[in-house]
């Protein structure tokens, strides 16, 4: 039990030094001092002997001196561990400084993601394609995202994501708390709740942050329906895990209904709110393949006189394959999403439309992906949805925390001049290790 011995040594040293310091010089204590000196000498001998013994054991244990802990079979606890002491090591002795200093123990986990973009468009005047916002030919700082995560208390966990865009403007991208257990059983079993501002559960792509996008820009149909920022709204989410033999989840969200793409919500007008439903199904087709199918609906009243609704429905299908063996070196993901919307603005008009996007990602080596995507907004046709687009992407990820991606997109002219776009994006993450959503 060497660790015990080490601890013993430490205490011997601490006790003996404190005993010496505590002594006042004086004749009355001279004999006591001599006694202590003698004892100290003995202790030093004892320490020497212990150190020698430690070295012997270290030699015997091989070339890992730091590994010499109580590793012999005798060290296995014979009695079950005491639950009260399971929380790890006990509190360390407090120094006076520790009392004054501010504790960092409960700081949230922080991770920062940053995106840099080199872009080229064949038509600099029509740069609106890239996530709906402008970019310059040449280098662009695309976005930096700061994520803070921590448990609030035994009931809530909080997640706050701040984004700084290329102009330096800071925006709360998401900020919410989640819970699956509340006091007094306020929350039924198999239910979780989310309150705050979040990406609404419409389809698959809408849930992703810019650095998680499978391609550098958004699908055309997502942009056309929800705008550049996607459907991100303040609101409340209740989701329920159905008691089915496969994973099946029903989500209901009550949202502010302020998305400018889908709703007309004037600043001065009364907020009407919007309601969203999502049904997600997920099945394992063996150990290596999975299939996900989702259905989404959102509807809300537009501001202004009358009872005019904006609505959208969507369906998504994802097939993924990843081998068990060499699972970091190969993988395929095929995702298809369809959306349809109607927007009734009363006397100001009525519009409707829909579109499809399908993409294939293939990982052919640990660090390499090749991807293709086809955008087909315009089933049925609508004003902004007449252009088809084909994109290819090559991704190189030196590690889990960095990636360089090269994308080329060609947009169908539809009566105008064709548009070619070339992107080179640098993506890196620092800080706490984020878990990866499937």
């Amino acid at each position, binding site marked *: 039990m060497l660790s015990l011995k080490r601890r013993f040594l430490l205490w011997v040293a601490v006790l003996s030094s404190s005993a010496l310091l505590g002594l006042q010089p004086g004749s009355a204590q001279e004999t006591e001092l001599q006694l202590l000196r003698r004892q100290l000498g003995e202790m030093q001998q004892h320490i020497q002997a212990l150190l020698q013994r430690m070295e012997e054991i270290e030699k015997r244990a*091989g070339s890992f001196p730091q590994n010499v802990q109580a590793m012999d079979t005798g060290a296995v*606890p014979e009695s079950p561990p005491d639950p009260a002491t399971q929380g790890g090591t006990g509190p360390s002795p407090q120094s006076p400084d520790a009392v004054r200093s501010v504790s960092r123990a409960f700081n949230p986990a922080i991770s920062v993601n940053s995106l840099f973009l080199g872009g080229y468009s064949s038509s600099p005047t029509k740069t609106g394609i890239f996530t709906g916002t402008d970019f310059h030919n040449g280098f662009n700082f695309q976005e930096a995202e700061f994520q803070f995560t921590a448990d609030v208390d035994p009931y809530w966990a909080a997640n706050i994501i701040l984004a700084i865009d290329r102009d330096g403007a800071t925006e709360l991208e998401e900020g919410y708390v989640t819970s699956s257990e509340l006091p007094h059983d306020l929350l039924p079993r198999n239910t979780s709740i989310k309150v705050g501002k979040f990406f609404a559960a419409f389809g698959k792509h809408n849930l992703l942050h810019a650095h998680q996008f499978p391609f550098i820009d958004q699908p055309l149909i997502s942009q056309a329906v929800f705008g550049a920022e996607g459907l991100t709204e303040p609101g409340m989410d209740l989701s329920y*895990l159905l008691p089915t033999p496969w*994973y099946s989840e029903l989500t209901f969200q009550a949202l502010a209904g302020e998305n400018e793409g889908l709703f007309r919500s004037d600043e001065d007008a009364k907020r009407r709110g919007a309601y969203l439903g999502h049904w997600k199904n997920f099945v394992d087709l063996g150990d290596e393949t999975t299939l996900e199918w989702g259905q989404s609906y959102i509807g809300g009243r537009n501001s202004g006189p009358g009872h005019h609704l904006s609505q959208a429905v969507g369906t998504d299908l994802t097939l993924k394959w990843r081998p*068990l063996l060499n*699972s970091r070196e190969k993988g395929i993901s095929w995702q298809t999403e369809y959306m349809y919307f109607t927007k009734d603005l009363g006397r100001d008009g009525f519009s409707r439309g829909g579109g499809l996007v399908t993409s294939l990602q293939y990982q052919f080596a640990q660090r390499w992906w090749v991807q293709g995507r086809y955008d087909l907004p315009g089933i049925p046709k609508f004003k902004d949805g007449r252009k088809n687009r084909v994109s290819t992407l090559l991704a190189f990820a030196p590690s889990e925390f960095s990636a360089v991606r090269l994308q080329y997109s060609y947009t169908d002219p539809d009566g105008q001049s064709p548009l070619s776009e070339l992107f080179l994006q640098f993506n890196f993450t620092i800080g706490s290790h984020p*878990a990866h959503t499937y």
Partner: protein
Amino acid sequence: MKWKQTCLWIVLLLPLLNSPLGARTLSVVATTRDLAAIAEAVGGDRVEVRSIAKGSQDPHYVAAKPSYMRLLNRADLLLYNGLQLEVGWLPLLVQGARNPGLVSVDLSQGIDVLEVPRGEITRAEGDIHPEGNPHYWLDPRNGLSMGIRISWQLKALSPMDGPFFDQRLEVFKRGLEAGIQSWEGQLRPLRGREVVTYHKQWEYLAHWAGLSIVGYVEDKPGIPPAPKHVAELIRRMQERKIRTLLVTSFVNPQVPQSVAEKAGATMVRLPSSVGGIEGVETYPSLFETIVSRLVEALK
């Protein structure tokens, strides 16, 4: 009349099915096959154990499939390895499980952890585990304390089955202790032998077996090795006459095979988990295979 009586009895007895009085198997989910195997051994038929990572899968990189959330949603007990082995996927699964009654047990508690980094750590060193090397199940002596820990948890969840679990634990301990004695005997002649490994994964095994690991193909954990490092390693292996390169069964053998060939060494594939190769279905049989392969390779 008889029919009605039967119905009455069924209605009266039905609630018992769900009550603690009725025989109920505990549903246990383990993140790895090793934890599952130990839980199966100490739990017997009073528990139903499922594992998330397959033995042939790298437990660092498991996809957080929603189907695992469903598994955790119905579980009574979650056994996990800890030391951030599952950090990339388990938090999402537990969050998605919506099971406040789930008891989670970190089995690394009470283990003497090796290679706890001292001082500043950075990702420039690769996928470092800030709490220390997580592959502690590869020392069978740790298996004993893991068994005790799991048995204690099972007893806490199902006190009625206490004597049963005690007896199972005793059998598990005796079997494993006998195994350890015999394996240590077989490994004794190999003490002090120098080996090279692929991933920083065999520290606990080497520590127990008295092997000395003098180099890694993957010099930074989780990062594919640079050619310069590989060349240097080969040179060092030739210089020190190291004849053995240990590789886990799920690693792509291409790179380590070529290193071994160039250095004039043999690549030895060892299962690093129960289920890692065919025929290894229990925790003791994992060491049975590892020890016999080590002895075979190093004799």
